[in-house]
C-alpha cells in the first residue's frame, strides 16, 4: 500500500491543549496510564477488603474500616461485600487493565513502533479517552448512591441484575457506564486498526511489525467485533431495568412468552470470552518482544508466534460456551465447545515453545522489564494449564464457581496482564517521560510482587479444589470449609503483602516523573533495542519522527555475527546484514 506522510503539527503551547484536550497520541496514552493506575489502586484496595473479610470475618477492617462502616464498627457488611467484589471485577477488567494495556500502550506504542507521526484520527482518539473518563466517573459515582453500587457480580447475570434482584440506580449506572466504556473502546479499536493498516512506515510489512503491535492489532480487531455484542446485551438490560421490557425476566419463552435469563449469559460470554484475549493479547505481544530484546537474540519463530496469536484470536470467538456448562446446554453443544476450547492449547503451546526458544542460547540481560516478562511466562504457564481442568465438562461440574476458577482467571487475566503491564511501563518509561526508573527498586518491586502473587492465586486454586465456592461473605458458615481457615488467612496476608509491594512501584514512578528534574534525560536508546521508537530522542518529541523512517529489516535483529557497527543489534532502518 502506498504510504502517505502525515503533516507535522505545531507543538501545543497552552496547558489545556498540551495535557487536557491533547490530540497527541503520546499524551493520550499517558492520560490512559494515569487513569488506569488510579483505578488499579482503587480495585486493589477493594481486593484487600474482600480478602480481609474472608480471612478475618467479623473483625473490623484496619485503619479505614471505622471511617467507612461506622454503623458496623468497621466490619465490612454483607451488602458492601457484594458491592466490593462486583466493583473489584469491573474496575480491574474495564478500568484498570483495559486502559493500561490497550489505552496506554496501544496509543503510545502503535504510532511509534510503526513509524507514524500520530494516530490516524487524533480527534477520535481524544474522544475515546473522554468517553472513558465519563464512564469512570459514572462508575465511581454509583458507589456514593444510597442503595449502593451494582452488587450482582461483574458478570451481572439477570435476573439478579434486573430490578427483581437489584433495586436502585447502582446497577443501572453500572450498565450505562459499561456501555459508555464500550463506545470508547470501539472508537479506540477503529482508530488502532485503521492506523496499523494504513500508516505503517514504508517498508514496514505486517511481518516486520514488532509483536507488541501484532498483539494490539489483534486485540483491536476483537474489540471492534465483540464489544458491540456486550453493548447490545447491556442495552437490553437497561431496557429491562428502565422501560420494563422482559428480555431477561424469569419464565421461559415457551410457557409464558416472557424472557430468558440464559439469553444474557449467551450474549455476555460471546463477548466475555474474547474479552479475556482482548486483555491478554497486548501483554503477550509485549512479552514476546521483550524476551527477544533482552535475550539479545531474534524472536524465535517470529512468524509462527504472530500466526499462533492470530489463530488464538480466531479460536477465542467460538469457545464461549465453556462458561455455561452448568446451565445444561445440549450435550452436543457442550462437547463441541469443549473440543474447540481444547484446540486453543495447540497455538498456545507453539508460542510458549517459541518464547522458550527465544531464551535458548541467548545472552540474557536481567533488567526489570525482562524479569517481569519472565514472570509472565511463569504465571501464564500456570494460568493456561489450569484452564484445562475448567475446559473439561465433567471436572467443571465440581469446580465451576469455586475458587479454582477465581485462581485460574486471576493467573491468566490479572497476574500475567499485570506483570506484562509493569514490564511495559518499566520498558517504555524513558520514551514516555524521558527518564528511566530506578532499576534496583524495580527489581525489588518484581520479587515482592511475584512471590505473594503466586501465594495468592495458588492458594485460591487449592481452596477451590477443596470445594470453597465464590462470592461468599463468610465461607465458614459451611462446615466443610472450616479447615480452610488457615489457607484463607495465608492468602490474605499474601494479598496485603502484594498490595504493600506496589508502594515500591508508586514511589519509583512518581519520583521519576516529578522529582527527577535535576537528573539528565535518558539517552535515545537506553535498552539498546532496534525498533523505530528508539531512534528518536527520549522523551519522544510531539511529532515523533522528523523524517518518516524507511524500514529495511525486522524488529528483532540481535546478535548478528557479521555486524560491523560495534553494536549487537540493528535498527529497523538499517539494511539487514547477511550472515554468509
Amino acid at each position, binding site marked *: 500500500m502506498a504510504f502517505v506522510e502525515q503533516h507535522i503539527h505545531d507543538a501545543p503551547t497552552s496547558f489545556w491543549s498540551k495535557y487536557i484536550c491533547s490530540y497527541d497520541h503520546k499524551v493520550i496514552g499517558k492520560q490512559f496510564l494515569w487513569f488506569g493506575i488510579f483505578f488499579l489502586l482503587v480495585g486493589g484496595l477493594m481486593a484487600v477488603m474482600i480478602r480481609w473479610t474472608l480471612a478475618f470475618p467479623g473483625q473490623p477492617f484496619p485503619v479505614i474500616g471505622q471511617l467507612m462502616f461506622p454503623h458496623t464498627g468497621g466490619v465490612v457488611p454483607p451488602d458492601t461485600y457484594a458491592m466490593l467484589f462486583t466493583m473489584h471485577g469491573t474496575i480491574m477488567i474495564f478500568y484498570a487493565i483495559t486502559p493500561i494495556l490497550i489505552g496506554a500502550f496501544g496509543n503510545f506504542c502503535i504510532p511509534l513502533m510503526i513509524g507514524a507521526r500520530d494516530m490516524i484520527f487524533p480527534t477520535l482518539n481524544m474522544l475515546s479517552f473522554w468517553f472513558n473518563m465519563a464512564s469512570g466517573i459514572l462508575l465511581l459515582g454509583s458507589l456514593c448512591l444510597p442503595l449502593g453500587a451494582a452488587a450482582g457480580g461483574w458478570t451481572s447475570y439477570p435476573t439478579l441484575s434486573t430490578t427483581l434482584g437489584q433495586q436502585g440506580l447502582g446497577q443501572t449506572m453500572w450498565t450505562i457506564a459499561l456501555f459508555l466504556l464500550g463506545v470508547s473502546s470501539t472508537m479506540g479499536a477503529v482508530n488502532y486498526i485503521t492506523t496499523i493498516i494504513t500508516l505503517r512506515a514504508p517498508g514496514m510489512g505486517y511481518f516486520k511489525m514488532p509483536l507488541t503491535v501484532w498483539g494490539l492489532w489483534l486485540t483491536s480487531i476483537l474489540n471492534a467485533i465483540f464489544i458491540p455484542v456486550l453493548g447490545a446485551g447491556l442495552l437490553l438490560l437497561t431496557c429491562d431495568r428502565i422501560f420494563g421490557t422482559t*428480555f431477561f425476566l424469569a419464565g421461559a419463552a415457551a410457557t409464558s412468552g416472557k424472557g430468558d435469563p440464559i439469553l444474557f449469559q449467551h450474549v455476555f460470554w460471546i463477548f466475555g470470552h474474547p474479552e479475556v484475549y482482548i486483555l491478554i493479547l497486548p501483554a503477550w505481544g509485549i512479552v514476546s518482544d521483550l524476551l527477544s530484546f533482552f535475550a539479545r537474540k531474534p524472536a524465535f519463530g517470529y512468524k509462527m508466534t504472530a500466526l499462533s496469536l492470530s489463530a488464538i484470536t480466531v479460536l477465542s470467538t467460538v469457545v464461549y460456551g465453556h462458561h455455561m456448562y452448568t446451565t445444561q446446554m445440549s450435550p452436543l453443544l457442550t462437547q463441541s465447545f469443549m473440543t474447540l476450547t481444547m484446540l486453543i492449547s495447540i497455538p498456545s503451546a507453539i508460542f510458549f515453545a517459541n518464547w522458550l526458544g527465544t531464551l535458548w542460547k541467548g545472552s540474557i540481560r536481567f533488567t526489570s522489564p525482562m524479569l517481569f516478562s519472565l514472570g509472565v511466562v511463569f504465571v501464564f504457564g500456570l494460568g493456561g494449564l489450569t484452564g484445562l481442568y475448567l475446559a473439561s465438562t465433567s471436572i467443571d461440574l465440581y469446580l465451576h464457581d469455586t475458587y479454582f476458577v477465581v485462581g485460574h482467571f486471576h493467573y491468566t487475566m490479572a497476574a500475567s496482564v499485570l506483570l506484562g503491564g509493569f514490564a511495559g511501563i518499566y520498558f517504555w518509561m524513558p520514551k514516555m517521560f524521558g527518564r528511566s526508573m530506578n532499576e534496583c527498586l524495580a527489581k525489588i518491586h518484581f520479587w515482592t510482587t511475584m512471590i505473594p502473587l503466586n501465594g495468592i492465586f495458588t492458594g485460591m486454586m487449592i481452596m477451590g479444589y477443596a470445594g470453597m465456592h465464590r462470592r461468599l461473605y463468610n465461607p465458614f458458615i459451611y462446615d466443610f470449609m472450616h479447615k480452610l481457615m488457615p489457607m484463607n488467612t495465608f492468602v490474605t496476608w499474601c494479598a496485603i503483602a502484594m498490595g504493600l509491594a506496589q508502594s515500591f512501584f508508586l514511589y519509583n514512578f512518581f519520583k521519576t516523573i516529578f522529582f527527577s528534574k535535576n537528573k539528565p534525560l535518558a539517552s535515545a536508546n537506553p535498552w539498546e533495542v532496534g525498533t523505530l521508537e528508539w531512534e528518536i530522542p527520549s522523551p519522544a518529541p510531539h511529532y515523533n519522527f522528523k523524517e518518516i523512517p524507511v524500514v529495511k529489516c525486522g524488529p528483532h535483529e540481535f546478535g548478528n555475527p557479521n555486524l560491523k557497527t560495534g553494536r549487537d543489534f540493528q535498527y529497523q532502518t538499517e539494511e539487514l546484514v547477511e550472515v554468509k
Partner: protein
Amino acid sequence: MNIDRSQEMKFIQSSVAMTVTLCSFAMLFATMFLGYFLVRSSVSVWPPVEIQGMPQGLPFLSTLAIVLSSVSYYFFEHKTGGKKVNFVLTIVLGISFLISQWLLWAALKESGILVSDGMVPSMVYAFTWLHAAHIAAAVFLLLWLGFYVFVRTEKLSPLKVINVGKFWHFLGVVWILMYLLIFVL
C-alpha cells in the same frame, strides 16, 4: 472524479475505518437478531403468546420510506443531474421514517400492546427504539452534510458523501431485516 495520490490514500483510510465501524454496528444489531433466533428456536409456535392487533401498515410504510430514501441518496451520490433535490428527498424521507416509527409506537400502545407484555412486544419495542435512535443520529449526520451541500460547498468532499451514505444504506438494510423478522415472519 480526478483524485490525486493523497486523496486516494485518504479514500483508502476512510474506507478501512468505515468498514470497521460498520462491522461494529453490524455486530450490535446481529446480537439483537441472535437473541431473536435463540428465543425463537426454543419455542414451537411463534409468537408464543397470541398478540392481537399488531399494526401491519405502518411498518410497511416505514420500509417504503427508508428504501426510497436510500434510492434517492444513491442518485445524489452517483448522478450529476438534480443532485440537491435528491439529497433533500433523502432527509425528508428519513424524517418521515422517524414519524412513522413514532406512529407505530402510538398504534401499538393503542391496541394494548405494552413493553412489559412479554418477549415479542419487548423485541418489537426495543429493536425499533434502537434502530430509530441510529436513524435519528444519521439524520443529524445528513443535516451536518447538508451544511456542506448548501452553505460551504467548496468544503464538500466526496468522502463525506460516501461515508454518510454507507451508514445510511447500512441502516436501511438493518431495517429491512428487522421488518422481515419482526413484522412479516
